[in-house]
């Protein structure tokens, strides 16, 4: 029998919602467990499909940053921060923001911004120094949310190729396994700088790879939405038709490279709520040329909620389910690719991340 797990990272621990894939949008079909990871703030919570291990990255206000792991679907946990350090002379590690399994390794994106790699499933870590050795490093300055390496993308076939997104700095790519990196932000706008098109200093919020087309990426930025068809070397604005150029989450269709989902928010200085307090997931099926609001079942008044960059996910099934969690602790699910929505979780702590996992009994 197949079980579907929603892995939810929150400000007060990790939660697992377990359900039947056939009843994904039925609120009564989900059983919640948590808070896990001793209630630590968790920014990223996902499963390594190759090993079945669960990973949760975050930081305790008292005990610092670490990556948690579970080999029994969350019943028991260990944590490690061995090697997650910039050394005794370097800045203190504030938090782990992203954990990504790729090509037999595990990667962590951290704050202050940097990339770490583990070759033993998260027991020990080493610093990928090439990224923080980029010539632009002296100019990296935190935005309001911090200086964070929050997005890590791995080329599906070439382990030497990766991309990262760093808040208030931009997109970087490597083609030599992390030894050297190139800033790739041409065409991305920084409305808050005198030069709106600098090489770095762009506030990337989220990036995703298009399914089956690893040269195509989509980006949600502080200042707009973008598409690249050349591995991030150049970006084209695709924000026309959206109610706001500001937002955080972005999810690619699991199979169609032309389709992407986003949740625009009403602006950096306007509260970062869904526009007009009416919740909607917006979908483009033509590479961002046009957009359609998907609202059925979502609150259409007094919805002063936001959705953070990693708090939306698909389950990859056919048809695929789509899920998102809000900054006020609601969890929504659609079993039909966004056409109809139902709230399947409530009264959770503020949700930082949502991921899915299919497990076989």
């Amino acid at each position: 029998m197949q079980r579907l797990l929603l892995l939810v990272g929150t400000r007060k621990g990790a939660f697992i919602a377990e359900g039947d894939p056939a009843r994904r949008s039925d609120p009564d079909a989900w059983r919640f467990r948590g808070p896990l990871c001793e209630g630590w703030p968790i920014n990223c919570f996902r499963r390594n499909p190759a090993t079945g291990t669960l990973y949760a990255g975050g930081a305790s206000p008292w005990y610092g940053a670490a990556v948690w792991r579970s080999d029994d679907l969350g019943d028991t946990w260990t944590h490690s921060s061995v090697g997650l350090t910039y050394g005794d002379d370097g800045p203190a590690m504030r938090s782990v923001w992203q954990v990504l399994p790729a090509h037999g390794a595990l990667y962590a994106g951290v704050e202050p911004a940097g990339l770490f790699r583990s070759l033993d499933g998260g027991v020990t870590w080493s610093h990928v120094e090439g990224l923080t050795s980029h010539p632009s490093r002296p100019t990296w300055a935190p935005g309001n949310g911090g200086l964070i390496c929050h997005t890590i993308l791995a080329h599906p076939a070439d382990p030497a190729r990766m991309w990262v997104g760093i808040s208030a700095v931009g997109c970087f790519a490597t083609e030599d396994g992390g030894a050297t990196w190139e800033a790739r932000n041409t065409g991305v706008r920084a409305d808050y700088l005198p030069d709106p098109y600098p090489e770095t200093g762009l506030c990337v919020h989220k990036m995703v790879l298009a399914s089956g087309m690893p040269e195509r990426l989509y980006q949600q930025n502080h200042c707009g939405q973008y598409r690249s068809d050349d591995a991030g070397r150049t970006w084209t604005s695709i924000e026309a038709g959206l109610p706001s150029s500001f937002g955080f989450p972005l999810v690619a269709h699991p199979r169609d490279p032309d389709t992407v989902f986003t949740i625009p928010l009403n602006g950096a200085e306007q509260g970062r709520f869904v526009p007009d307090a009416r919740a909607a997931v917006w979908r483009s099926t033509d590479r961002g040329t046009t957009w359609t609001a998907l609202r059925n079942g979502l609150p259409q008044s007094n919805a002063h909620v936001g959705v953070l960059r990693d708090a939306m996910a698909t389950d990859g099934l056919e048809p695929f389910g789509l899920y998102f969690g809000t900054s006020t602790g609601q969890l929504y699910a659609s079993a039909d690719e966004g056409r109809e929505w139902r709230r399947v979780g409530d009264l959770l702590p503020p949700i930082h991340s949502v991921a899915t996992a299919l497990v076989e009994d």
Partner: protein
Amino acid sequence: MPTVVLPRSLVALFPGAERHVAVEGSTVLGVIEALDARWPGVRDRLCGPGPALRPFINLYVDGAPADLTSPVGAGSTVHVLPAVAGG
């Protein structure tokens, strides 16, 4: 041998760890390193780079505020306490 009193929230992170532990050490840092030898990772939970004590961890030796360099006697009690913080 000094006795260290650890908070519940720290003990919860290390299966098998105890709240009252007797370990060797002539300084607070030495005591923490002895704890780390028994339960690998404890040092990282209490100390950041430097090493420096994490901002929201308080230390007391025989009831007096202490830091990592504070001396610890053979019969001392070292309290490790999470500060009033968070939210």
